[in-house]
C-alpha cells in the first residue's frame, strides 16, 4: 500500500507542478462555456450566419395580398415579371429564388420555386409557414372572424408545470432544470474518463518506451505501479474538479449579479422577449424565467446527486482507466493504440450520444434502465437519469454492478499489464493478449 501511495504521489506531483496543469484548469471551463455558448447562440440565432435572400413572388392573382412577412434573412419582393425575366434575374444574382403563383388558381396546394441551388429545409419551411398563415388568416377572415379576434386566438398559450409525487409529498418539477443537471454530471464524467484515461495510457507507454519500467518493477509489483498511476492521475482530476467547483462558487455570485445588472439596464428587452415568446406560443423558458430556473435548482436532492456523481466519477474512471492502462502496456507507441482504443471508447461515446437523446427523452424506458446497469455505459447514463427520479433498487443495482465491473477490469488490466510492460517489439494481437491473461508470472 505504501508503494502504491509513493507511485501515485509522484504521478500527482509531476502533473500538478506543470504549468500546463494550471493553465488548463483555469482555461478549460472558459473554453467549455465558450464552446457551448457558441453552439447555443447559433442554435437560437440560426440565421446569423446566412446572408439575406430575396425571394421574388410573382403573384398576379394577389393570393398573398403582399402580406408575407420578411425575416432577418429572407425578404419577399412582390413584382410581376415574366418567366424569362425571372430566370435572367436569378442568374444575375438579383433574386435568390422566384415563386410564380398561377393567376387562375382557386386553391393553392403546391407551388413551384425557381432557383439555382437547392434551398435549405429551413428556408423552405419558413416560406411555407408564411404562406400557410396568410392563406389561413384570409380563409378565417372570409368566414367572418375579424382581425382582433384572430390576434387573440394566435396569442393562446398553454404551459405545463410538473408536480412530482414523492415520499415527502408533491414537489415542483422542472424538465429543463432536470435535463440540465443530469447533462452536466454526465458530461463531466465523460470528459474526465476520456481525458484522464488517455493520460493513464500515455503514462504507461512513456514508462515502457523510456525503458524505465524494468527498473521500477524490480522495486514494486506491476500491480502497485499500475494502481499507483491510475490513482495518482485520479487525484489530479479530482483536484482539477475541486478547483472548478470553488471557482464556480466564488464567481457565480458576481457573475449572476452582472447578468442581472445587464438585464436591469434593458427592461424593454425583457418585456419584448416576454411578449415575443408569448406570441410565438411555444412553452419555452423566457429570460424572465431565469430566476425561476435558479430557484428550481433548489428542488433537487443535491446530496444524493452529488454523492452519486462522486461515486460514478471515481468508479467509472477506475473502470475505464484500468482498461486504458492495459492498452498502454500492450503497445510500444501511441500510434499502435488505435486498434485497441476503438472497442473501449465506442461504448463510452455510445453512452454519451444516447444520454443526450433517448435517455433524456425517456429516462425510465427499458433501454435507459439497462444502459444504467451496464458498467460500460452506466456512469454517463445514470447521471442523466438521476434528477428525473430513479427507484432506489435501480440505484443500488447500478452501483453494485459498477463495483463488480471495475474490480473485474482492474483484475483484467493487471493481468495484461504485468506481461505487457516487459514485452517489446511487434504489436500483440488480441489472441496474444488473451493468452497473457492466463500466463503465470
Amino acid at each position, binding site marked *: 500500500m505504501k508503494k502504491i501511495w509513493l507511485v501515485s504521489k509522484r504521478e500527482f506531483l509531476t502533473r500538478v507542478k506543470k504549468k500546463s496543469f494550471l493553465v488548463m484548469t483555469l482555461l478549460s471551463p472558459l473554453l467549455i462555456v465558450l464552446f457551448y455558448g457558441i453552439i447555443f447562440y447559433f442554435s437560437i440565432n440560426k440565421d446569423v450566419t446566412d446572408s439575406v435572400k430575396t425571394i421574388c413572388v410573382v403573384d398576379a392573382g394577389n393570393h398573398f395580398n403582399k402580406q408575407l412577412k420578411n425575416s432577418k434573412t429572407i425578404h419577399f419582393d412582390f413584382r410581376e415579371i415574366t418567366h424569362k425575366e425571372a430566370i435572367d434575374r436569378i442568374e444575375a444574382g438579383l433574386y435568390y429564388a422566384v415563386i410564380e403563383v398561377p393567376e387562375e388558381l382557386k386553391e393553392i396546394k403546391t407551388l413551384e420555386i425557381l432557383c439555382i441551388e437547392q434551398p435549405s429545409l429551413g428556408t423552405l419551411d419558413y416560406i411555407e409557414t408564411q404562406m400557410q398563415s396568410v392563406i389561413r388568416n384570409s380563409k378565417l377572415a372570409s368566414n367572418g372572424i375579424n382581425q382582433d379576434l384572430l390576434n387573440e386566438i394566435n396569442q393562446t398559450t398553454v404551459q405545463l408545470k410538473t408536480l412530482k409525487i414523492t415520499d415527502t409529498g408533491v414537489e415542483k418539477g422542472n424538465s429543463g432544470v432536470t435535463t440540465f443537471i443530469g447533462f452536466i454530471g454526465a458530461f463531466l464524467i465523460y470528459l474526465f474518463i476520456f481525458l484522464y484515461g488517455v493520460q493513464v495510457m500515455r503514462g504507461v507507454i512513456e514508462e515502457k518506451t523510456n525503458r524505465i519500467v*524494468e*527498473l521500477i518493477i524490480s522495486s514494486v509489483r506491476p500491480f502497485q505501479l499500475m494502481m499507483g498511476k491510475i490513482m495518482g492521475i485520479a487525484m489530479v482530476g479530482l483536484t482539477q474538479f475541486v478547483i472548478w467547483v470553488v471557482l464556480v462558487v466564488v464567481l457565480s455570485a458576481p457573475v449572476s449579479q452582472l447578468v442581472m445588472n445587464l438585464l436591469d439596464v434593458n427592461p424593454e428587452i425583457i418585456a419584448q422577449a416576454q411578449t415575443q415568446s408569448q406570441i410565438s406560443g411555444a412553452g419555452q423558458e423566457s429570460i424572465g424565467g431565469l430566476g425561476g430556473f435558479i430557484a428550481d435548482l433548489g428542488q433537487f436532492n443535491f446530496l444524493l446527486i452529488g454523492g452519486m456523481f462522486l461515486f460514478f466519477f471515481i468508479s467509472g474512471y477506475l473502470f475505464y482507466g484500468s482498461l486504458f492502462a492495459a492498452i498502454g502496456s500492450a503497445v510500444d507507441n501511441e500510434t499502435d493504440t488505435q486498434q485497441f482504443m476503438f472497442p473501449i471508447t465506442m461504448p463510452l461515446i455510445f453512452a454519451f450520444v444516447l444520454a443526450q437523446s433517448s435517455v433524456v427523452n425517456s429516462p425510465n424506458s427499458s433501454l435507459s434502465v439497462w444502459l444504467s446497469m451496464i458498467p460500460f455505459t452506466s456512469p454517463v447514463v445514470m447521471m442523466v437519469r438521476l434528477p428525473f427520479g430513479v427507484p432506489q433498487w435501480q440505484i443500488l443495482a447500478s452501483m453494485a454492478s459498477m463495483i463488480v465491473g471495475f474490480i473485474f477490469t482492474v483484475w483484467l488490466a493487471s493481468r495484461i499489464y504485468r506481461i505487457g510492460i516487459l514485452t517489446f517489439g511487434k504489436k500483440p494481437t488480441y489472441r496474444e493478449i488473451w493468452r497473457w491473461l492466463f500466463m503465470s508470472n
Partner: protein
Amino acid sequence: MIIQVNNLTKRYKNHLAVDNLSLAIPEGSIFGLLGPNGAGKTSFIRILTQITQADEGEILFGGEKLNSSHVLQIGYLPEERGLYKKMKVGEQLLYFAELKGMKSSEAKSRLKYWIDKFEVHTWLNKKVEELSKGMQQKVQFIATVIHQPKLLILDEPFSGFDPINAQVLTDEILNLRKEGATIIFSTHRMDSVELLCDHIALINRSKKVLDGPVHQIKQEHKSNLFELVYTGNTISSNPVFDAQEIWNEGDKRCVGIVPNQNISNRELLLNLMNQGIEPISFREKLPTMEEIFIKTVGISNLENHEENLAGK
C-alpha cells in the same frame, strides 16, 4: 553464500528459459554470469529481482527464501534502462530510493553522499533530459546503488557506456565490493568482465555449463602452453617439448612451447636456456573465458543457438 539457487526452472510458452539451474554466489564476490545472448541470463536475473517467478526450484538470499523484503537489499541495473526524462534528477533519485523501501531522511543523506562523490551538485534541480548522455549514465548508476544494496545485479553494464564512464563504473564497483557488496555481472561479452570477476558461471541454452572460481576454472582448462619471447637461434621441437613459432619481428621471436608430460617448469627453462637464446619474457598462457566456453560447449552448438534465436 549470499545467493543459493537450487534447481531453478522457468518455462515460457514454447521454450525453456532456465533449465534446472543450481549455483551459489559467495558473499563479497564479483560473480560473472556469462553466456551468449538468449542463453537465459536475463530470465534468471528477472527471477532473482522478483520481476517474474520460477516455475520450479528456489532461491535463498542469505539463507532465507527470497521474498519481497529482500528488494531493498538488491540493486538492479537492467540491460534495458532509462529514467523519467521530465523529472528532476534529485527528485528522481529520491523516488527510486523510497520505492526500494528506504526512509526519506536516509535516502536524502545517501543522495548527498553520491552527489558529493561525483561532484554533481548542479544537476540536482535539472531535468534528466537536460543532461548529456554520459551524465545520464552516472545518474542511472546512482539510481542503482543509492539504497546501499548488499547485492548489485548489473545486466550488460557496459553496453551504452562511453569508455570514461565505463571506467568510473568499474572503479565504483570495486569500491562497493570493498565495502562488502556482492556484484553479479551478466554479459555476453566475456572479455569485458574476465579481469573483474573472481567467480563465474557459464550458461548456454538455459543450462549451466560450468561454474567456480575463475583461477580454478582456468587451471582446469589450461592446455599447458607457455609463451617465450627471445632473441637468438630458432628453437625447434625436441623430446622435452614441442615448439611452434607464433611471430617474429627482426631478431625477436615468439614461440609457443608445450612441454612433454612430467617435466617441471624448472627443467623446461633449463632446457630452453641450453639452446643458447636470450629470453625476454616467459609466461604460462591461460585460456580466456571465451576459449573455455567455446571449448566446453562446442562452436557449432553456439552458432546453432544464435540461429535458433534469430529464427524466432
